[in-house]
């Protein structure tokens, strides 16, 4: 049976909202606050513009990517869950093999609520961080991609709010309201995770953020998609199909930036990627600066995975609330009572790898899967550089570098993972992490380019258009008033 999306309420959904008066009422009450949040956030001229967006009209593969011009405030945010799998079982932990829960199991109520709130909090946070980027979009194509990411983050907030309203009663309603009350970077009510309170000041930061930080989000969704609480699993599975677009924006955004830099260097006959001033004079971002941005965003994102050894993570796995990446494809007992896993530890100020009980290393296992996933794109960026014949290689820094959480957080390491003194660190930092001057330079390139088919000086055009559209397609019909 196809899962048909109902449009008979204000909120498109495939969860039969019209026959669930209590939840419908709660969501309708929450809805105006959401619309206000959105309207106050994105600059007015973009709210009035027509954006060529993808909207899901059903959750089967053929129906979830329908493209059309939409004004963002009129985007059909809805509640879409992947189709229910018959006889689904709890995939991991002490309840592995028992039927998946359709209601919240009492003993795990608090744990579940916390996980959903943390996930939900990141969704509006990133829209808040990116709110001003439309003003400096390097093309209408990129502006459209930004807004697509934004409206889908908004939809992901809806997805989490639905779970809170449907399954957590008065507590859930309060949490849902708080998701709109907290603000990224706010003094009195900041977002819950550190990385989501930093501003996204420029487009390279945005691409790095979508590549590295949204990829953490993707891994968390992958783990929650394995949940024994079936509504959460179904919600996250559908969110993952949308998350793939965010990965695409990040990977191709950084790739196109690298591409343009390499092309400009070749045109100008510059072979040495460290001739930074000469390269910057071409109106492109030099490769060493891109590497520094990579170092920063990768390490900030590693912090999002928490401590190397974590009893919280062990508990949620054991409870069957959160699984591992691709749990259903792993070939073990899915309980991990007697298994071990290798994690980084610090012994005598040296990073060493040690076996610890696998249950307590659930976070690290997910982080290792994350690093593998993230390394793939870095090697594809290197292929671009290699193809242009430039001698430079992007690298992921060592996991000990620039960490604020976990065993490495108290010590100073260089990107190779070697312990360094404070003086050595201060000396090296300007080559490892973006400086204020780097930020100012990148900012100086952030000039909007709003002509269809044209791109700012620092970024190459994409190889393929969205929805197969030709190169000069007007992805955003800007409201000029």
């Amino acid at each position, binding site marked *: 049976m196809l899962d048909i999306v109902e449009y008979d309420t204000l909120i498109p959904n495939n969860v039969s909202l019209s026959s669930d008066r209590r939840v419908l009422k709660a969501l309708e009450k929450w809805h105006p606050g959401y619309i206000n949040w959105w309207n106050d956030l994105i600059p007015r001229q973009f709210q009035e513009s027509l954006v060529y967006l993808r909207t899901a009209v059903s959750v089967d*593969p053929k129906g979830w990517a329908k493209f*059309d011009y939409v004004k963002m405030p009129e985007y059909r945010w809805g509640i879409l869950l992947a189709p229910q799998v018959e006889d689904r079982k709890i995939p991991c932990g002490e309840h592995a093999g028992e039927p998946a829960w359709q209601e919240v199991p009492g003993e795990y109520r608090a744990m579940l609520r916390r996980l959903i709130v943390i996930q939900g909090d990141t969704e509006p946070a990133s829209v808040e961080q990116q709110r001003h980027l439309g003003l400096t979009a390097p093309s209408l194509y990129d502006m459209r991609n930004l807004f697509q990411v934004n409206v889908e983050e908004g939809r992901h907030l809806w997805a989490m709010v639905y779970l809170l309203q449907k399954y957590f009663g008065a507590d859930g309603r309060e949490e849902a309201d708080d998701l709109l009350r907290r603000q990224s970077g706010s003094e009195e009510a900041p977002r819950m995770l550190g990385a989501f309170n930093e501003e996204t000041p420029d487009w390279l930061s945005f691409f790095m953020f979508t590549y590295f930080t949204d990829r953490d989000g993707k891994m968390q969704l992958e783990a929650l998609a394995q949940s024994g609480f079936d509504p959460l699993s179904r919600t996250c599975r559908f969110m*993952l199909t949308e998350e*793939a677009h965010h990965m*695409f924006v990040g990977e*191709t955004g950084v790739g196109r930036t690298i591409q343009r830099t390499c092309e400009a260097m070749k045109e100008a006959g510059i072979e040495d990627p460290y001739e930074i001033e000469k390269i910057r004079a071409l109106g492109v971002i030099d490769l060493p600066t891109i590497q520094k941005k990579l170092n920063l965003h990768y390490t900030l994102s590693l912090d999002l995975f928490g401590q190397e050894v974590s009893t919280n993570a062990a508990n949620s796995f054991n409870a069957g609330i959160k699984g591992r990446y691709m749990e259903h494809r792993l070939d073990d007992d899915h309980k991990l009572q007697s298994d071990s896993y290798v994690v980084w530890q610090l012994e005598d100020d040296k990073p060493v790898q040690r076996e610890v009980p696998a249950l307590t290393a659930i976070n690290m296992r997910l982080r290792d899967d994350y690093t593998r996933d993230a390394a793939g794109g870095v090697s594809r960026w290197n*292929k671009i550089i290699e193809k242009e014949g430039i001698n430079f290689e992007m690298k992921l820094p060592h996991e000990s570098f620039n960490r604020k959480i976990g065993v490495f957080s108290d010590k100073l390491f260089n990107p190779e993972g070697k312990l360094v003194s404070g003086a050595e660190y201060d000396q090296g930092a300007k080559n490892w992490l973006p400086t204020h001057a780097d930020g100012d330079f990148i900012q100086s390139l952030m000039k909007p380019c709003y002509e269809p088919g044209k791109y700012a000086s620092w970024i190459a055009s994409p190889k393929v258009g969205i929805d*197969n559209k*030709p190169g000069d397609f007007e992805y955003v019909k800007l409201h000029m008033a």
Partner: protein
Amino acid sequence: MNKPVKQHLIDPEICIRCYTCEMTCPIEAITHNDDNVVVDFDKCNFCMDCIPVCPTGSIDEWRVVSEPYSLDQQFEWMELPAQEEFAEGASEEASGLEALDDDMARLLAEAHAGAGGKAKAPASASKASINLYTLAKPAEVTVQGNYRLTADDDHDVRHIILDAGGLPFPLLEGQSVGVIPPGSDENGKPHLPRLYSISSPRSGERPNYNNFSLTVKREEKGICSNFVCDLKSGDKVQVTGPFGSTFLMPNDSAARLLMICTGTGSAPFRAFTMQRQRSGATGDMTLVFGARTADALPYFGPLKKVPETVLKKHLVFSREAEKPKRYVQDELRAMEEEIVGLLNDPTAHIYICGLRAMEEGVEAAFENIAESTGRAWKEIRDVMRSEGRYHVETY
């Protein structure tokens, strides 16, 4: 040599390895290693479920191959191999990608045979989606309207508007859809779809509505045409498609179009004209349209409202009272100077659509006109065709 086959591939330079296609594929035909995501030729059944879920467009790649690429070969790729060249004699049916099922590919190959060689889309055409809906998984669309276009009793031509509702149905002008008439044939098998060219532009019969139109002539004893011509508003129809990836219009706004048709062959040209009006194209368009009488000419009324500055109209009638019979080829000869100008213009595109019987006469007229300039028509035609500027679709 093996009969060439169509193979579904993924472009490794565009793919971001998100594995969404792999998770979506209902039959596990997609797999990956550390390098690439690949499609198993032996498993893929062209169900198209993976196409819309791909965030990059890398999934929408097809090659006609004499020997399918193995998984190991695909794992090694850094970039997609070029389409292999087939010998000059290879038929479009064998080497084309107009449709992914053999019956539809054969019908389109037959329809395009009059172009004298392998059909090629205009360089600036949009990339067409094909085979989203198949006999096994058709789309159900709803009739929004059925209007009679002709006043002649012997020629009942209908304009049918179909609404795809919430279903994604991306169509380009010049593409066709298959209509599945209900019931079964004398052997008890369900009827195969009949192909009809759409007559509305890409943005819909009504702009930004998910609907499209067909132009259908009632044929005596025609199972499908009678079914379609009798449809009423609200009726449901099973359709397949879209089909066709070469008989498309150029997006280049300055391109010039010469469109030659008879009867319902006017369907794609209605779509071309509307699309160019909606997109504000600047290149001129000329229509040479033949019918028995004005009463038998579909869209006679609306056509007269299109300004001559947008579309130069040459309506030609073969059975008008007390007038000599005139056919489209006669008109073409009378337009010699204009035609020569078009043949010499690298931005000109020629389209011929209608009954097969018109082909010979039109071809002869072009031969005469080319000859008068001292050039061989077949050479001009072959160059234009290989540049995607000469298109024939007859039935």
